[in-house]
């Protein structure tokens, strides 16, 4: 089989994997490593596209057996109803077990206080870390991607968190070859990011290739929105808009799905996967730049939140 060794110039190497196959293979390897080495892993599942892709990868990694993990959703109380509906249908369809950590419960109990700006995204950290401690999860899968944000670009695939769930970027373990080190002391846990190396476009291309269903809000639709800080936010029970913020109906879609108080819609007429991919490939804005208010709070907003235990 020496002919395999060198492929002549101008021919296609029959053993070359497509970039999506390489990324898929790597992600599946990561899921299986965690299944092989940890006692109580959990997948963070929000009903957003990245966690949907993660769930799809996990289903493939362990087929024809069921996924050997439970799911956890940190519900800010300001989630899009279409996304919660999708979440519940998906959990039921695959016979999965879902834990919910509710920000609203913490606010009602007086242990978390609503912020003046009404943004609940930063409030997720406490329910998340307490759920991890309560259920004694030792590995927590997240859909974070390094292309999303400059602090995330520094994140390891296996990211050790201390007993307070804190991330210390200067004390990360070097990550060598595909040898992931998941050793941890009791009380510590590891955040695992199987799609670290994927970009937004990869995620969409994979969704298209695998015919993965998404919540409808990812596709263009008419929606009542209002302008806050240059972003189209959805009017609703969560507290927007203020009297000074007039609403209007626009043709929009979402590039990311998160808390309604800080996730903006983008003007779009993309109603199909093909159209969405064309739109993203041509976009001059990153998905977070286009749609996330919380990252703009300061130059190191994400790093600071991650240090505290955020994903």
């Amino acid at each position, binding site marked *: 089989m020496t002919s395999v060794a060198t492929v002549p110039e*101008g021919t296609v190497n029959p*053993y070359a994997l497509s970039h999506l196959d390489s990324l898929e293979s790597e992600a599946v390897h990561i899921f299986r490593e965690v299944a092989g080495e940890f006692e109580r892993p959990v997948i963070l599942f929000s009903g957003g596209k990245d966690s949907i892709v993660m769930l799809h990868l996990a289903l493939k990694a362990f087929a024809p057996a069921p996924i050997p993990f439970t799911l956890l959703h940190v519900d800010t109380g300001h989630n899009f109803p279409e996304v919660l509906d999708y979440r519940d249908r998906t959990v039921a369809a695959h016979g999965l077990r879902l834990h919910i950590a509710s920000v609203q419960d913490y606010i009602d109990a007086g242990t978390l206080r609503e912020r003046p700006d009404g943004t609940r995204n930063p409030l997720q950290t406490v329910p998340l870390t307490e759920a991890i401690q309560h259920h004694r999860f030792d590995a927590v899968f997240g859909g974070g991607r390094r292309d999303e944000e*400059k602090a995330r670009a520094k994140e390891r695939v296996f990211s050790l968190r201390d007993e307070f769930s804190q991330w210390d970027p200067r004390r990360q373990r070097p990550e060598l070859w595909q040898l992931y080190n998941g050793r941890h002391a009791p009380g510590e846990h590891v955040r695992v990011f199987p799609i670290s190396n994927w970009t937004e476009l990869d995620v969409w291309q994979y969704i298209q290739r695998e015919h993965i269903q998404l919540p409808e809000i990812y596709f263009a639709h008419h929606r009542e929105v209002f302008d806050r800080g240059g972003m189209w936010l959805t009017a609703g029970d969560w507290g927007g808009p203020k009297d000074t913020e007039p609403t209007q109906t626009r043709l929009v879609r979402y590039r990311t799905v998160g808390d309604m108080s800080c996730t903006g819609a983008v003007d779009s007429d993309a109603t199909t996967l093909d159209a969405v991919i064309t739109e993203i490939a041509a976009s001059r804005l990153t998905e977070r730049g286009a749609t996330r208010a919380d990252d703009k709070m300061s130059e190191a907003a994400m790093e600071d939140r991650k240090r505290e235990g955020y994903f």
Partner: protein
Amino acid sequence: MTTTTQPLNETLAETTLLRFATAGSVDDGKSTLVGRLLHDSKSVLTDQLEAVEHASRNRGQDTPDLALLTDGLRAEREQGITIDVAYRYFATPRRRFILADTPGHVQYTRNMVTGASTAELAVVLVDARNGVVEQTRRHAAVAALLRVPHVVLAVNKMDLVDYQEPVFAAIAKEFTAYAASLGVPEITAIPISALAGDNVVDPSAHMDWYGGPTVLEHLETVPVSHDLTACPARFPVQYVIRPQTAEHPDYRGYAGQIASGVLRVGEPVTVLPSGRTTTVAGIDALGESVDAAWAPQSVTVRLTDDVDVSRGDLIAPSGSLPASTQDVEATVCHVADQPLSVGQRVLLKHTTRTVKAIVKDIPSRLTLDDLSQHPAPGQLVANDIGRVVVRTAEPLALDAYADSRRTGSFLLIDPADGTTLSAGMAGASFAAAVRGGSAPEAAEDDAEWDF
């Protein structure tokens, strides 16, 4: 030989992925090169550029500092240095790229090792005015040690030497001779100016004497993963899939990522370390039944016999098995702040198998500056590269790193707190000149490596 010219990856399925690393000293213009690659391939988006412009203005700088694109941590931006590896992503119609942007400073050798461990190509930057310097030799040595299949020498700042061919030719000759002596299989030298944009993405108008590819052209066309499939098949078992459901009462599959080579249905295989032989009954490639699968595909393998197989075992063709050993001789790069000492008890993680081990000997330590060997250092500290002899509690099916980066590599881990101590590469390397504590072959070193 007649070949058909294929349309270049016009469909999604034909787009491949190249992982590469950059290495260069602080002032060689690495950030500018990375910035230029990202910028000219239109991978820097408006909001990212705005953020960089905003941050640069706040610092009182007139022009946007492209290094801020990659220096993502507070501490890095405060100090204006790159502390840690950053991964960047960009794409052209031909290929997708994952760039491990590694710090150039000597105290971060471990970060270059981290970046190079998964890279199929390394770009080593040289300032055309300074030529090959100690740091260049270190970068070449790490690339050679980690066996990065392709090395690009980017001779930068050609604009500052009037784009003269003899300057480039002399540097390319010196570097190629040095890197080749370390065993780097393929070296491509490209004269560039990252600042002016010569030969990075677009061909230079100032160097018509150069007929080779631009940096991006080379990145787009260099072959990937051919080395993996040429090796004998290695399949480390990660996880046993046994649904025990009404639909699949008897399914028993061994999940893993093929580490090297090609695995075929019907092939006689041996399970290590038990040595039991059987045959591949079927291969499930994430939902599709296939006749053959190859590295680095993640698959599930079924065997004809109900043999005892679990996580940590290795399945390999019966005709070409790796050696089983409890005495591992290797070159390691020490990556932890705490030292590695003779007599220390450690864990050794090799593929999917983690075993207890003890450091029996540290025969030598390598100085990257001049590749000189220091016998019996007693311990290795952060960023040291040295030879070690490790005795494991159980036999390992270990290949030489020279034959397989995947099944010849391992980690040493501190059993007390889980710290990753060292990155290990089994078998011989150029760092293995000293054996059993004998005197270093200094004279030979001088003749080979000093200029």
